[in-house]
Protein backbone atom coordinates (compact mmCIF):
# COMPACT_ATOMS: atom_id res chain seq x y z
CA UNK A 1 0.00 0.00 0.00
CA UNK A 2 1.30 3.48 -0.97
CA UNK A 3 0.92 6.54 1.11
CA UNK A 4 -2.23 8.42 0.26
CA UNK A 5 -1.08 11.84 1.56
CA UNK A 6 -0.76 14.09 -1.53
CA UNK A 7 1.08 16.97 0.14
CA UNK A 8 4.03 14.79 0.99
CA UNK A 9 4.32 13.72 -2.57
CA UNK A 10 4.07 17.27 -3.93
CA UNK A 11 7.02 18.55 -1.84
CA UNK A 12 10.24 17.16 -3.27
CA UNK A 13 13.51 17.76 -1.37
CA UNK A 14 16.06 19.96 -3.18
CA UNK A 15 19.35 21.60 -2.24
CA UNK A 16 17.90 25.06 -2.98
CA UNK A 17 15.24 24.57 -0.36
CA UNK A 18 17.83 23.58 2.23
CA UNK A 19 19.78 26.83 1.78
CA UNK A 20 16.59 28.88 1.93
CA UNK A 21 15.76 27.39 5.32
CA UNK A 22 19.29 28.10 6.59
CA UNK A 23 19.08 31.86 5.99
CA UNK A 24 16.01 32.49 8.17
CA UNK A 25 17.62 30.32 10.84
CA UNK A 26 20.65 32.57 10.82
CA UNK A 27 18.47 35.64 11.08
CA UNK A 28 16.54 34.04 13.90
CA UNK A 29 19.73 33.18 15.74
CA UNK A 30 21.15 36.64 15.32
CA UNK A 31 17.86 38.11 16.51
CA UNK A 32 17.95 35.97 19.65
CA UNK A 33 21.55 37.03 20.21
CA UNK A 34 20.64 40.71 19.86
CA UNK A 35 17.75 40.36 22.30
CA UNK A 36 19.99 38.59 24.80
CA UNK A 37 22.62 41.31 24.56
CA UNK A 38 19.99 44.01 24.86
CA UNK A 39 18.57 42.39 27.97
CA UNK A 40 22.02 42.05 29.49
CA UNK A 41 22.78 45.66 28.71
CA UNK A 42 19.51 46.89 30.26
CA UNK A 43 19.68 44.69 33.37
CA UNK A 44 21.81 47.16 35.43
CA UNK A 45 19.18 49.83 34.81
CA UNK A 46 16.51 47.49 36.15
CA UNK A 47 18.60 46.84 39.26
CA UNK A 48 19.19 50.55 39.80
CA UNK A 49 15.48 51.13 40.13
CA UNK A 50 15.04 50.38 43.79
CA UNK A 51 11.66 49.26 45.11
CA UNK A 52 11.50 52.50 47.08
CA UNK A 53 11.13 54.45 43.87
CA UNK A 54 8.36 52.21 42.61
CA UNK A 55 5.47 54.18 41.36
CA UNK A 56 2.82 51.58 42.15
CA UNK A 57 0.28 53.14 44.46
CA UNK A 58 -1.97 50.19 45.08
CA UNK A 59 -3.78 50.35 48.42
CA UNK A 60 -2.56 47.83 50.96
CA UNK A 61 -5.24 46.07 52.98
CA UNK A 62 -4.42 46.60 56.65
CA UNK A 63 -5.82 46.29 60.14
CA UNK A 64 -5.34 49.16 62.54
CA UNK A 65 -4.14 47.79 65.88
CA UNK A 66 -4.11 51.07 67.77
CA UNK A 67 -3.23 54.73 67.61
CA UNK A 68 -5.22 56.58 64.96
CA UNK A 69 -7.55 59.24 66.36
CA UNK A 70 -11.15 58.78 65.26
CA UNK A 71 -10.77 55.10 64.43
CA UNK A 72 -11.60 52.11 66.57
CA UNK A 73 -8.94 49.55 67.34
CA UNK A 74 -8.87 46.49 65.07
CA UNK A 75 -10.68 48.33 62.28
CA UNK A 76 -9.78 47.27 58.77
CA UNK A 77 -8.97 49.62 55.93
CA UNK A 78 -6.39 50.34 53.30
CA UNK A 79 -3.12 52.23 53.36
CA UNK A 80 -1.82 54.28 50.45
CA UNK A 81 1.27 56.45 50.16
CA UNK A 82 0.28 59.26 47.81
CA UNK A 83 1.36 62.86 47.20
CA UNK A 84 3.53 62.97 50.29
CA UNK A 85 0.79 61.65 52.55
CA UNK A 86 0.09 58.32 54.19
CA UNK A 87 -3.63 57.74 53.84
CA UNK A 88 -5.64 55.29 55.89
CA UNK A 89 -9.03 54.82 54.30
CA UNK A 90 -11.92 52.99 55.92
CA UNK A 91 -15.34 52.60 54.37
CA UNK A 92 -16.47 56.10 55.40
CA UNK A 93 -13.60 57.77 57.22
CA UNK A 94 -10.13 58.62 56.03
CA UNK A 95 -7.09 60.17 57.63
CA UNK A 96 -3.92 61.60 56.12
CA UNK A 97 -0.56 61.74 57.82
CA UNK A 98 2.03 63.96 56.13
CA UNK A 99 5.07 61.80 55.40
CA UNK A 100 7.65 64.45 56.47
CA UNK A 101 6.08 64.45 59.96
CA UNK A 102 6.83 60.74 60.36
CA UNK A 103 9.86 60.41 62.63
CA UNK A 104 10.09 56.64 62.76
CA UNK A 105 8.91 53.71 60.65
CA UNK A 106 9.61 50.21 61.90
CA UNK A 107 8.47 46.87 60.54
CA UNK A 108 8.03 43.66 62.48
CA UNK A 109 6.34 40.29 62.30
CA UNK A 110 3.61 38.54 64.23
CA UNK A 111 1.22 35.64 63.93
CA UNK A 112 -2.52 35.30 64.29
CA UNK A 113 -4.96 32.42 64.59
CA UNK A 114 -6.23 31.24 61.22
CA UNK A 115 -9.76 30.72 62.62
CA UNK A 116 -10.60 33.97 64.36
CA UNK A 117 -13.52 36.32 64.97
CA UNK A 118 -16.73 35.01 66.50
CA UNK A 119 -16.22 31.53 65.08
CA UNK A 120 -12.72 31.53 66.51
CA UNK A 121 -13.96 32.48 69.98
CA UNK A 122 -16.61 29.74 69.90
CA UNK A 123 -14.09 27.21 68.64
CA UNK A 124 -11.87 27.95 71.65
CA UNK A 125 -14.39 26.08 73.80
CA UNK A 126 -14.57 23.05 71.53
CA UNK A 127 -14.67 19.60 73.14
CA UNK A 128 -11.67 17.31 73.69
CA UNK A 129 -9.18 20.17 73.31
CA UNK A 130 -10.12 20.80 69.70
CA UNK A 131 -10.01 24.57 70.32
CA UNK A 132 -6.46 24.29 71.55
CA UNK A 133 -5.56 22.15 68.58
CA UNK A 134 -6.98 24.74 66.18
CA UNK A 135 -4.86 27.42 67.88
CA UNK A 136 -1.81 25.68 66.46
CA UNK A 137 -2.81 26.79 62.97
CA UNK A 138 -1.61 30.34 62.61
CA UNK A 139 -0.86 32.72 59.77
CA UNK A 140 2.07 35.11 59.62
CA UNK A 141 1.61 38.86 59.62
CA UNK A 142 3.72 41.94 59.10
CA UNK A 143 3.47 44.86 61.50
CA UNK A 144 4.14 48.46 60.60
CA UNK A 145 4.75 50.86 63.48
CA UNK A 146 4.79 54.58 62.76
CA UNK A 147 5.60 57.50 65.03
CA UNK A 148 4.69 61.00 63.88
CA UNK A 149 4.19 64.49 65.30
CA UNK A 150 0.99 66.49 64.89
CA UNK A 151 0.65 70.23 64.31
CA UNK A 152 1.17 71.05 68.00
CA UNK A 153 4.27 68.89 68.18
CA UNK A 154 2.53 66.06 70.04
CA UNK A 155 3.91 62.59 69.43
CA UNK A 156 1.58 59.91 68.06
CA UNK A 157 2.17 56.22 67.55
CA UNK A 158 0.26 53.96 65.19
CA UNK A 159 0.45 50.20 64.70
CA UNK A 160 -0.85 48.42 61.60
CA UNK A 161 -0.85 44.75 60.63
CA UNK A 162 -0.89 43.50 57.04
CA UNK A 163 0.02 40.59 54.82
CA UNK A 164 3.53 39.21 54.72
CA UNK A 165 6.00 41.31 52.71
CA UNK A 166 3.76 44.37 52.39
CA UNK A 167 5.09 46.32 55.37
CA UNK A 168 8.60 46.49 53.99
CA UNK A 169 7.32 47.86 50.67
CA UNK A 170 5.30 50.55 52.45
CA UNK A 171 8.28 51.43 54.59
CA UNK A 172 10.45 51.87 51.52
CA UNK A 173 7.80 54.05 49.88
CA UNK A 174 7.60 56.20 53.01
CA UNK A 175 11.37 56.55 53.29
CA UNK A 176 11.56 57.49 49.61
CA UNK A 177 9.09 60.31 50.27
CA UNK A 178 10.94 61.72 53.29
CA UNK A 179 10.00 59.64 56.34
CA UNK A 180 12.72 58.77 58.83
CA UNK A 181 13.55 55.47 60.49
CA UNK A 182 15.72 54.30 63.36
CA UNK A 183 16.19 50.84 61.89
CA UNK A 184 17.74 51.16 58.46
CA UNK A 185 17.09 48.63 55.72
CA UNK A 186 19.29 47.79 52.75
CA UNK A 187 17.20 49.92 50.42
CA UNK A 188 17.16 52.91 52.73
CA UNK A 189 20.96 52.74 53.03
CA UNK A 190 21.14 52.66 49.24
CA UNK A 191 18.75 55.61 49.09
CA UNK A 192 20.88 57.57 51.57
CA UNK A 193 24.05 56.71 49.72
CA UNK A 194 22.57 57.85 46.43
CA UNK A 195 21.66 61.25 47.88
CA UNK A 196 25.21 62.54 48.54
CA UNK A 197 26.35 61.41 45.10
CA UNK A 198 23.49 63.38 43.58
CA UNK A 199 24.58 66.37 45.63
CA UNK A 200 28.14 66.07 44.42
CA UNK A 201 26.95 65.82 40.86
CA UNK A 202 24.98 69.02 41.23
CA UNK A 203 27.96 70.87 42.63
CA UNK A 204 30.07 72.59 40.00
Amino acid sequence: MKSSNPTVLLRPRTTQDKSSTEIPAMIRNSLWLTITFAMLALSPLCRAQSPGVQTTREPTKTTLVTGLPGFKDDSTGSLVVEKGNLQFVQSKNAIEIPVPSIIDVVTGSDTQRVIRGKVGTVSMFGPYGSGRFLSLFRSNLDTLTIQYRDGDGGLHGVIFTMGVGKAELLKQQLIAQGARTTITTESSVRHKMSKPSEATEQNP
Partner: protein
Amino acid sequence: MRNLFRAAILACLVSPMCLGGSVSRDQKKASQARPTGIEVEMVQFDEIKLPTEFQVAIYENLIRQLQENGRFENVYRDGDRNATEHPDTIVLHCTVTGFKQGSERARQVTTVAGATSMIVHCRFTDANGRALLERDIQGKVRFFGGNLKATYDFAKKAAGVAREVSIEQSPRTASL
Protein backbone atom coordinates in the same frame (compact mmCIF):
# COMPACT_ATOMS: atom_id res chain seq x y z
CA MET B 1 -22.25 73.13 140.38
CA ARG B 2 -18.72 71.80 140.62
CA ASN B 3 -19.37 69.42 137.69
CA LEU B 4 -20.67 72.26 135.56
CA PHE B 5 -17.56 74.26 136.32
CA ARG B 6 -15.34 71.29 135.38
CA ALA B 7 -17.22 70.78 132.10
CA ALA B 8 -16.80 74.45 131.21
CA ILE B 9 -13.06 74.29 131.83
CA LEU B 10 -12.78 71.10 129.77
CA ALA B 11 -14.71 72.68 126.93
CA CYS B 12 -12.46 75.71 127.01
CA LEU B 13 -9.40 73.48 126.82
CA VAL B 14 -10.67 71.09 124.11
CA SER B 15 -12.35 73.52 121.69
CA PRO B 16 -9.18 75.39 120.65
CA MET B 17 -7.47 72.07 120.01
CA CYS B 18 -10.31 70.91 117.75
CA LEU B 19 -10.41 74.20 115.94
CA GLY B 20 -6.65 74.13 115.53
CA GLY B 21 -6.83 70.61 114.08
CA SER B 22 -9.46 71.54 111.53
CA VAL B 23 -7.54 74.64 110.56
CA SER B 24 -4.33 72.65 110.01
CA ARG B 25 -6.27 70.05 107.96
CA ASP B 26 -7.68 72.85 105.79
CA GLN B 27 -4.22 74.28 105.38
CA LYS B 28 -2.91 70.87 104.34
CA LYS B 29 -5.76 70.46 101.85
CA ALA B 30 -5.06 73.91 100.48
CA SER B 31 -1.37 73.17 100.12
CA GLN B 32 -2.10 69.97 98.14
CA ALA B 33 -3.74 70.96 94.86
CA ARG B 34 -4.93 68.61 92.20
CA PRO B 35 -3.16 68.99 88.86
CA THR B 36 -5.48 69.71 85.94
CA GLY B 37 -3.27 68.40 83.19
CA ILE B 38 -0.77 65.64 82.54
CA GLU B 39 1.86 65.29 79.85
CA VAL B 40 2.84 61.75 78.95
CA GLU B 41 6.39 61.34 77.73
CA MET B 42 7.39 58.62 75.29
CA VAL B 43 8.19 55.34 77.00
CA GLN B 44 11.89 54.72 77.43
CA PHE B 45 13.87 51.51 77.93
CA ASP B 46 17.49 51.19 78.94
CA GLU B 47 19.00 47.75 79.34
CA ILE B 48 16.27 45.60 77.86
CA LYS B 49 15.25 44.99 74.29
CA LEU B 50 11.71 46.22 73.80
CA PRO B 51 10.01 45.90 70.39
CA THR B 52 8.85 49.22 68.97
CA GLU B 53 5.22 48.09 68.77
CA PHE B 54 5.22 47.51 72.53
CA GLN B 55 6.77 50.92 73.16
CA VAL B 56 4.12 52.61 71.03
CA ALA B 57 1.28 50.49 72.43
CA ILE B 58 2.22 51.38 76.03
CA TYR B 59 2.30 55.07 75.15
CA GLU B 60 -0.99 55.09 73.24
CA ASN B 61 -2.85 52.95 75.79
CA LEU B 62 -1.58 55.16 78.59
CA ILE B 63 -2.91 58.29 76.91
CA ARG B 64 -6.25 56.64 76.19
CA GLN B 65 -6.68 55.37 79.75
CA LEU B 66 -5.80 58.77 81.23
CA GLN B 67 -8.33 60.43 78.93
CA GLU B 68 -11.03 57.92 79.87
CA ASN B 69 -10.11 58.17 83.55
CA GLY B 70 -11.50 61.70 83.76
CA ARG B 71 -9.07 62.66 86.50
CA PHE B 72 -7.29 65.18 84.30
CA GLU B 73 -8.92 67.87 82.22
CA ASN B 74 -6.11 67.83 79.68
CA VAL B 75 -3.92 64.94 78.63
CA TYR B 76 -0.99 66.10 76.53
CA ARG B 77 1.24 64.04 74.31
CA ASP B 78 5.02 64.10 74.37
CA GLY B 79 6.27 67.39 72.93
CA ASP B 80 2.87 69.10 72.83
CA ARG B 81 3.44 72.86 72.97
CA ASN B 82 0.13 73.47 74.76
CA ALA B 83 1.39 71.65 77.86
CA THR B 84 3.74 74.51 78.76
CA GLU B 85 0.87 76.99 78.92
CA HIS B 86 -0.52 75.42 82.10
CA PRO B 87 1.89 75.51 85.05
CA ASP B 88 -0.07 72.93 87.07
CA THR B 89 0.52 70.24 84.48
CA ILE B 90 2.40 67.22 85.74
CA VAL B 91 4.67 65.03 83.63
CA LEU B 92 4.65 61.24 83.53
CA HIS B 93 7.96 59.56 82.72
CA CYS B 94 7.85 55.80 82.07
CA THR B 95 10.86 53.51 81.83
CA VAL B 96 10.46 49.83 81.07
CA THR B 97 12.73 47.94 83.47
CA GLY B 98 11.56 44.39 82.81
CA PHE B 99 10.02 42.71 79.81
CA LYS B 100 9.29 39.10 78.93
CA GLN B 101 7.61 38.48 75.59
CA GLY B 102 5.43 35.38 75.77
CA SER B 103 3.64 33.53 73.02
CA GLU B 104 -0.04 33.77 72.16
CA ARG B 105 0.09 30.30 70.63
CA ALA B 106 1.57 28.81 73.82
CA ARG B 107 -1.09 30.56 75.92
CA GLN B 108 -3.93 29.27 73.78
CA VAL B 109 -2.60 25.74 73.59
CA THR B 110 -1.33 25.20 77.13
CA THR B 111 -3.17 27.90 79.17
CA VAL B 112 -0.34 27.97 81.75
CA ALA B 113 2.65 28.89 79.59
CA GLY B 114 3.47 31.83 77.34
CA ALA B 115 2.52 34.77 79.54
CA THR B 116 3.76 38.22 78.52
CA SER B 117 4.76 40.52 81.34
CA MET B 118 6.47 43.86 81.80
CA ILE B 119 7.50 46.08 84.68
CA VAL B 120 7.43 49.81 84.08
CA HIS B 121 8.87 52.38 86.43
CA CYS B 122 6.50 55.36 86.47
CA ARG B 123 7.66 58.73 87.75
CA PHE B 124 5.30 61.66 88.13
CA THR B 125 6.99 65.05 88.30
CA ASP B 126 5.79 68.62 88.39
CA ALA B 127 6.66 71.19 85.75
CA ASN B 128 9.97 71.94 87.51
CA GLY B 129 11.02 68.30 87.44
CA ARG B 130 10.42 67.65 91.15
CA ALA B 131 9.31 64.07 91.77
CA LEU B 132 5.76 63.75 93.12
CA LEU B 133 5.26 60.00 93.01
CA GLU B 134 7.30 57.02 91.85
CA ARG B 135 6.06 53.49 91.46
CA ASP B 136 6.80 50.23 89.64
CA ILE B 137 3.73 48.98 87.79
CA GLN B 138 3.36 45.57 86.20
CA GLY B 139 1.40 44.72 83.08
CA LYS B 140 0.70 41.15 81.99
CA VAL B 141 -1.45 38.92 79.84
CA ARG B 142 -1.91 35.33 80.99
CA PHE B 143 -4.79 33.71 79.13
CA PHE B 144 -6.73 35.54 76.44
CA GLY B 145 -5.57 38.15 73.98
CA GLY B 146 -2.46 39.06 72.06
CA ASN B 147 0.86 40.03 73.56
CA LEU B 148 0.04 43.72 73.24
CA LYS B 149 -2.80 43.27 75.73
CA ALA B 150 -0.16 43.44 78.47
CA THR B 151 0.29 47.11 77.58
CA TYR B 152 -3.44 47.69 78.12
CA ASP B 153 -3.24 46.02 81.54
CA PHE B 154 -0.33 48.24 82.51
CA ALA B 155 -2.01 51.41 81.23
CA LYS B 156 -5.15 50.74 83.24
CA LYS B 157 -3.14 50.30 86.44
CA ALA B 158 -1.00 53.38 85.72
CA ALA B 159 -4.11 55.51 85.18
CA GLY B 160 -5.33 54.36 88.59
CA VAL B 161 -2.05 55.37 90.19
CA ALA B 162 -2.24 58.77 88.47
CA ARG B 163 -5.36 59.53 90.51
CA GLU B 164 -3.25 59.56 93.66
CA VAL B 165 -0.93 62.29 92.43
CA SER B 166 -1.33 65.75 93.88
CA ILE B 167 0.86 68.80 93.64
CA GLU B 168 2.20 70.11 96.92
CA GLN B 169 2.09 73.84 96.46
CA SER B 170 4.19 76.33 98.38
CA PRO B 171 2.42 77.83 101.50
CA ARG B 172 2.19 81.19 99.81
CA THR B 173 0.40 79.74 96.82
CA ALA B 174 -1.78 77.62 99.07
CA SER B 175 -2.91 80.58 101.12
CA LEU B 176 -3.97 82.34 97.97
